């Protein structure tokens, strides 16, 4: 599978630094599940961070810190056993482990052929993170964005004026973008979407969708 759309360098760096918001991190982690190429720059940035850690000035620990740590390691019996993570599927796709760990809310149908499932742990108003499913050939009405939005396609494809995006593609949308995404005719399209703030829907249908989707 070819992946054509990747995160920007700045986004990869923020992920490596741990400063990318929770939702965007989940979307990016989903992309990394598809894209080995993007793991390289992250590893390089983490290497840089390790080097920077070495050069940080010491910040003195409490006097008994080491003794305390030694006491605590004595209680620890080697590495904890790994739990076998459950692998529930959604519409036949494996969900990224980080997304499963964060937890997914209930499915809510918001229009014919369209549902969303929230990720409450990564949705702190006004930011929201959710899975969105469009049935084959379904369209989201024309809308703008209250802030930046990061999308990873998990299944199927969608297209808008900027291009066509398939499973694994990562799309960064800025505040200025207005679009009307259309799911490919080949089948349903499922994406993980992390928005800084809710979409700005236009018109009455938009308002209606928004009132259904809210909360």
């Amino acid at each position, binding site marked *: 599978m070819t992946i054509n759309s990747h995160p920007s360098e700045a986004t990869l760096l*923020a992920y490596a630094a741990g400063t990318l918001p929770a939702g965007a*991190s989940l979307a990016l982690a989903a992309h990394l599940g598809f894209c080995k190429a993007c793991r390289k720059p992250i590893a390089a940035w*983490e290497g840089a961070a*390790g080097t920077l*850690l070495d050069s940080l000035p010491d*910040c003195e620990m409490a006097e008994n810190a080491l003794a305390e740590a030694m006491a605590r*390691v004595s209680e620890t019996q080697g590495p904890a056993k790994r739990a076998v993570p459950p692998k529930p599927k959604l519409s036949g796709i494996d969900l990224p482990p980080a997304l499963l760990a*964060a937890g997914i809310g209930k499915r809510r149908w918001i229009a014919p052929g369209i549902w969303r499932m929230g990720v409450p742990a990564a949705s702190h108003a006004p930011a929201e993170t959710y899975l969105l499913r469009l049935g084959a050939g379904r369209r989201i009405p024309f809308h703008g964005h209250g802030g930046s939005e990061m999308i990873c396609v998990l299944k199927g494809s969608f297209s808008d004026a900027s291009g066509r995006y398939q499973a694994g593609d990562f799309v960064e949308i800025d505040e200025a973008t207005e679009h009307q995404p259309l799911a490919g005719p080949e089948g349903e399209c499922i994406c993980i979407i992390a928005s800084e703030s809710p979409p700005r829907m236009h018109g009455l249908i938009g308002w209606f969708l928004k009132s259904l989707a809210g909360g």
Partner: protein
Amino acid sequence: MHTIAHPPVPFGVAPRLAMSTWPQGAPTGGGEWPACIAAIARDQDKEAFALLFRYFAPRVKSYLMRFHMEPSVAEDLAQETLLTVWRKAAYFDPARASASTWIFTIARNLRVDVLRGTAHPEALSEDAGIESTAPLPHDIVLSAEREAKTREALVSLPNDQAEVVRLSFFEDKPHSLIAQELGIPLGTVKSRLRLAFQRLKSALEGVS
């Protein structure tokens, strides 16, 4: 018990480490740390742990303090970071990352977890790999070489690029805020990061 006369000697099977024969303070290039971590994984070696703790805990605390954490919280998290090193020592893979880099990612993941209540996605994948066995000399050489190259590249960055890299790692600020504080457009922050990354990438070329 074996003792090591001339560190860094992290090759092959790491011997048990005796504190008296180990350098205090900063190691040259971090070459000894993989052996320390291997000794923890294999023998639950407390002396090796003490060495790692003395060197890394104060640096991790310093890293955390940069995110405006309360000193007591930073202290606890630095402690927790090193305890994670103990618990997950068997998962450390020197072919993939240097000890400093691995410890940075542990500290970062804990910080993210505390800050937003959700784990950094990588916190979930770091156990997923196959347990590494004792590091091979080749791995350590690679990892040390990569680290040296990275260090060189970072040192050689022009100040304006170095500054945005530093702010990106050690301040919990989005790039838009960094741009605001430096009084430059967001695009400039991004292009400086891009240039910095190009340097890093070309420095690492040939070192896999």
